[in-house]
């Protein structure tokens, strides 16, 4: 595992760049642990200060320090993306592996559910979800809702691999040796699809963070939990752009763009490494 990362770091500029960008983002998020101000308190510092020492990224109209506010926001946003990715990956793995291996009726039922999730429009559903939940809407609930909507494409991908694995000799041997279906899927098939899952995880994080930011900016989430989107939402509420408080909007946007680019670069370079054909062509050059 370590040698793989070392090789990737040396051979792929994209991987190194992505890893560095993400490291910056994670460091900022980690800084929230030593923040001098609680995230939800307002008017703890003088409002509307331009970036200068000691408020390096300035302060907001609500009297909050932008930098420290940002550390909480990016931590929640990253965690959000991570939780959505993990939960949706778990669903995708189970559905994909079972569907591909079992075939027949099981496959047809699971795939019709899967295809339903692929075609339903996400954004209106999530907005509707917000209006239904309203006061009981929370950060965790939104994460779970998005996880339940974001697994379908990957389940199809995993299923296609599982279908080919089902006909391999080692699957026959596993069946012959008396392994249960659960054991075959968990021990023999899952290691095979994990690299693919790993790559789609990063893309899924990008997708969920993007959607969360969109919803928050529009105010369709719980605005008491600071996230990048919620920060921009508050900035808009206080007409930060008109008032000339540009740093209130600029730095959250910059940080989330850095996150996107970092995750994207990692996903792309991983993808090239995981696909044996592009790995070979890379080795040749």
């Amino acid at each position, binding site marked *: 595992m370590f040698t793989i990362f070392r090789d990737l770091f040396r051979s792929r500029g994209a991987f190194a760049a992505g890893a560095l960008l993400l490291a910056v983002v994670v460091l900022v998020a980690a800084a929230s642990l030593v923040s001098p101000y609680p995230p939800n308190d307002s008017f703890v510092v003088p409002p509307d200060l331009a970036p200068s020492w000691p408020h390096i990224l300035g302060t907001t109209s609500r009297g909050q320090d932008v930098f420290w506010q940002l550390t909480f926001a990016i931590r929640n946003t990253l965690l959000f993306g991570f939780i959505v990715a993990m939960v949706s990956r778990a669903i995708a793995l189970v559905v994909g592996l079972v569907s591909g291996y079992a075939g027949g009726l099981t496959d047809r039922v699971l795939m019709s559910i899967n295809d339903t999730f692929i075609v339903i429009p996400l954004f209106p559903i999530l907005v509707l979800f917000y209006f239904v939940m309203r006061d009981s809407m929370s950060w965790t609930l939104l994460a779970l809702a998005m996880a339940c909507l974001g697994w379908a494409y990957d389940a199809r991908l995993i299923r296609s691999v599982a279908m080919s694995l089902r006909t391999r000799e080692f699957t026959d041997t596993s069946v*012959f040796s*008396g392994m249960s279906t659960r054991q075959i899927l968990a021990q023999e098939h899952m290691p095979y699809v994990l690299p693919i899952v790993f790559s789609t995880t990063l893309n899924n994080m990008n997708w969920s963070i993007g959607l969360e930011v969109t919803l928050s900016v529009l105010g369709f989430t719980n605005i008491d939990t600071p996230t990048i989107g919620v920060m921009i939402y508050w900035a808009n509420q206080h007409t930060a752009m008109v008032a000339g408080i540009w740093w209130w909007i600029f730095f959250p946007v910059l940080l989330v763009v850095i996150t996107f680019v970092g995750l994207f670069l990692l996903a792309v370079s991983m993808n090239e490494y995981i696909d044996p054909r592009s790995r070979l062509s890379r080795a040749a050059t």
Partner: protein
Amino acid sequence: MSNPVLTVSDLRAFYQTSAFGIQREVRAVDGVSFHVAANEIYGLAGESSCGKTTLIRTIAGAARPPLKVVGGAITFDFKGRRVSVTDADPKMLAAIRWKHLSCVMQGSMNVLNPVRRIRHSFIDFASRHVGEPMPVFLEMVRVHLRRLDLEARVLDVFPHQLSGGMRQRVAIALATVCRPDFIIADEPTTALDVIVQNSVLAMIREVQRELGSSLIFVTHDLAVHANLSDRLGIMYAGRLVEEGPTADIFRKPRHPYTINLISSLPRIGSDNRNKGLEGAPPNLANPPSGCRFHPRCPLAMDICRRENPPMTEHGPGHRVACFAAVPEKVQ
């Protein structure tokens, strides 16, 4: 002589599909009977698509739809423990597999999961059948690997890091590590070059002798059979057409198909051009009536078109299913 380890009687296994309202039936194994004695290597020969693999899949109890056993019986006798594969429930089959009955499948280089280390393949497939604690089991595996000229180091590598011959030996080790009474080998050496093939065959024989197990060995390569098998069964279009001691069959084949098969082998010192047999094996979804070989048979008679020839004794342990073959007179 003790009871045969495996008795197959009048086995019929068909591929049955019904898709889009069309029923199809491929009679891949149709009325096959034979037995395999203890400590014997039984060879099964025949051209591609004659039902060899179907037959042994059925014997291994690994018939999955669309393959279905339509009739007949398969009975194992593992030192007094009788198991009928055709009636046994899955639990019972699971209990005998690997411990008593194991299988080196076709393309056996692929029985190893490409993303798991060899050690895990052994643990996944075999350890449950041994019932020893893990360190004892792994020591057993190491000893067994040494028997097959493999270092214990191979346990820690991935299959793609081994050469074809080594992978083949690992596959054989995997199938034999539980000291089974009965081993089924389906073309285990077909993908190898002749030199590696030779050493692998010697190894199979050695392991078989040492464990005292019975072995069904399937290959279309008659040269391999000549080297390895004690007795040989020749299959044609889903039926057993001739069976006897290997030397006997090579020296004096009786069935016209076998005669042509044997004469197609190149012989040292012969300048004759080998003549091929006209035609192709029949479509098993719609086999010819009577003897399935009659459209290609040079000796075909009227009765061959109407009736299926029964297996008749033509010598000691030598059975032939042909109306035209005349039993040898006792001299």
